């Protein structure tokens, strides 16, 4: 890869991305999928410097697939097309109520990018021939994500909330779709910094406290980094990585 030629100044996000692939490799982590969850800048495209794009592209250098969605800031700054163009140029595929099919050792996985801003979120229909072993969703603002769309989803990756949540992944949380106190529960978990990683696709984990309502397995998984406070100290942000490990008996 061509090195960076310009001498520019970056924030800590670029510092992170500069070392991230090497650091993950050192920890034995080889990502299959990198999700960019939106809000690439705060003040517009000028901050999405070409060298930042190069940094993003490095995340895929070992063969990982990349998808991205847009966040509220990307819409508020106006130039969504420019953002799409730049992030796409780093090798990431833009998803907006659409999906990408990813094969891992012959197993198909669906990655859905949910757009909660433009036209409202919708679950794309899969062709009949496509029966993914896992369906995961990337969305920006989880508060705008209709819980009804979570049915049948194995994992949801969200962003937007920043402080207090990004360092606190919750996986395998089982909730009733119509549970009136769902958001309160999420909030409580967030404040308590509870981390719960539980098996997905296991009926034994369905929450029995919700009465006779319709249940879905609702794994809220992982939030990404939080950059604005990184400059103030290393304890403010984190990178969360999750490895889904198959426990099934046979390949589909």
């Amino acid at each position, binding site marked *: 890869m061509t090195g960076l030629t310009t001498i520019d100044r970056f924030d800590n996000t670029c510092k992170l991305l500069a070392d991230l692939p090497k650091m993950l490799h050192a920890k034995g982590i080889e990502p299959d999928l990198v999700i960019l969850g939106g809000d690439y800048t705060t003040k517009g495209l000028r901050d999405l410097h070409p060298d930042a794009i190069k940094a993003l592209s490095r995340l895929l250098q070992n063969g990982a697939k990349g998808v991205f969605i847009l966040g509220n800031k990307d819409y508020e700054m106006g130039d969504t097309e420019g953002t799409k163009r730049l992030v796409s140029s780093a090798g990431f595929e833009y998803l907006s109520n659409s999906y990408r099919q990813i094969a891992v050792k012959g197993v198909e996985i669906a990655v859905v990018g949910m757009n909660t801003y433009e036209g409202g979120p919708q679950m794309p229909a899969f062709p009949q021939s496509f029966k993914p072993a896992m369906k995961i969703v990337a969305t920006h603002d989880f508060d705008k994500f209709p819980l009804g769309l979570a049915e049948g989803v194995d994992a949801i990756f969200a962003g937007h909330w920043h402080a207090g949540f990004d360092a606190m992944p919750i996986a395998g949380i089982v909730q009733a779709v119509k549970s009136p106190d769902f958001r309160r529960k999420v909030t409580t978990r967030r404040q308590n910094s509870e981390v719960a990683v539980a098996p997905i696709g296991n009926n034994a984990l369905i929450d029995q406290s919700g009465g006779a309502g319709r249940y879905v397995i609702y794994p809220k998984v992982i939030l990404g980094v939080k950059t604005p406070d990184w400059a103030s100290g290393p304890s403010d942000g984190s990178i969360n990585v999750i490895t889904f490990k198959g*426990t099934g008996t046979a390949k589909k």
Partner: protein
Amino acid sequence: MFLFEGGVVEKAEKKQTPSVLQKIPVKNKNDEFLPEAKPSKSQLKEISKKLQTKAAWNEYTFRAKELMAPKVAAAEEKEKQVLASKQEVCDRQIYELFSIKVNHYECPVSTLPKGVEFTVINLTDLHFRYYTPSKAPPYKPKSDDKEWRGKEGNNPKYYYTNVQDRYIIDRFDNN
């Protein structure tokens, strides 16, 4: 005009350098002119005039480079050591920074066959910030980028001073 330390002229004489070099002002180790070697105003004028010939000037600059080489090498070595020291600090800071920032979770999935693993990273809300160097004019978010960058004074590369930033760039270059 180059000024040499005492001894240079003598060395030059031994090598039969042009006579003009004998009149070049010399300095001692305390950066003072040696009285006996200090040329007069008229002599300086003459030296200056003679050095305008290509041969004299070539000889003069060649000698200057040759004589300065050890000093330059020593300065470069010192600079390397300083940079290496700073880089080491940066390295440590960055790895300390990162060492507590990766949370790796594992989640069993019954719908995936045993032996299949799928690792996902969610990098959201990156909020890239491209800093304007402190010596450059303040960035105006609403201004046109091309217009703003088009002015030489606004080009950050002319103002680069931050060692850590340089270090980051190097890391990209070397990987």
